[in-house]
């Protein structure tokens, strides 16, 4: 999926994560901060990268501000931000691009 504009999803509430996606010339640039950095940053990073990969995003600036979200929430917020940023119209490909 192509990132056409900047988009945000999620909040800064406890147990949530705010994901900001912006267009980039090439590659994935990921900026991560988390309230559970020491114990979970590797897993958070993996979930973000896997989700982007599943969605076929190859170029994006991604900022993740995590407040202790579970993996399923991180995935949901990344997906929403990508669909917004790609200006997707029409039915969402549940069980397809959205694993």
């Amino acid at each position, binding site marked *: 999926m192509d990132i056409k504009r900047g988009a945000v*999803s999620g909040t800064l509430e*406890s147990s949530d994560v705010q994901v900001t996606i912006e267009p980039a010339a090439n590659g994935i640039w990921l900026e991560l901060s988390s309230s559970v950095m020491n114990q979970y940053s590797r897993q958070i990073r993996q979930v973000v990268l896997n989700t982007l990969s599943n969605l076929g995003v190859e170029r994006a600036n991604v900022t993740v501000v995590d407040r202790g979200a*579970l993996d399923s*929430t991180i995935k*949901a917020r990344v*997906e*929403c931000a990508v*669909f917004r940023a790609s200006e997707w119209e029409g039915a969402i490909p549940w069980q397809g691009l*959205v694993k």
Partner: protein
Amino acid sequence: MAGTCEVTSDPKKRLRRTMLFLNAQRPSLMKDAYIYGPDSVILDLEDAVSENQKDAARFSLYNNLRSIDYGTVERIVRINGLDTPHWPEDVRASVAGGADGIRIPKCERACDVKRIEAAIEDAEREFSREPGCTLIMAAIESPRGVLNALDICESSERLFGVAISGGDFRAAMRTKYYPSGVEMASARGNVLLAARAAGVQCFDTVFTNLDDMDGFRAEVIMNREMGFDGKSIVNPRQIAIVHEIFTPTDKEIREALRVVRALRQNADEGVGVFLVDGKMIDAAFLSGAEHTIALARASGVLGEAL
């Protein structure tokens, strides 16, 4: 005792004393509300979610349904109304995620249910779900809905019950909440009659004032006395009260057990009408007695009464 009566395996008839609303946009609420032990949760895409977050809530909902184990707690999704552009995608996300059922808000006519039913059928095909596995409940929120309640209750094989929603109804009737419940009497009476006539379940409206637990308790007692199956609730603190009030007493359970036993025994012997504890009993008492036993079992008091 085991085997003398069975908890129904028909998902349409499962116990639904408490249906707890959860905002599908709030991860902190959705992640483990099952620990409070409601019979059902209603993951809300409608009123709890602001207009510009409808898409985000769907992604949360879908991932929540796919990844979080709610155990035996039923997962219903309240979709957006038929007067919005959101409901078709809501239905797709719910079915794709594997929701147990869909709650249709502001239902006014049987054809409202039919439209959602058709969308569910399409989605079940699209996402390879077992046909018919997604149930429906309709929320009746207007005078027209109340008047059409029987049609609505009989509109779909998938429909397991109807819920009354008091907020819009009170406004339409130009009244407000009163502790006596008199302002809801017309809706409660009519919808309950329709549900019983159609053989589906009926749930009362939410009680939103969390500071008035006595008022809540009084309303739940009235609900049970009227014959409701359960209640929509807004906070886990309300669960224990509803379950306590809907829990049959020892005396009620013992009576029900005697009725079921006697009915089975007499049916084997070809007797139709007989006496239990001096009361005339026939086959019409069976479903009520079985319901009492199922309630007792769900409340964990069946063993104590034996």
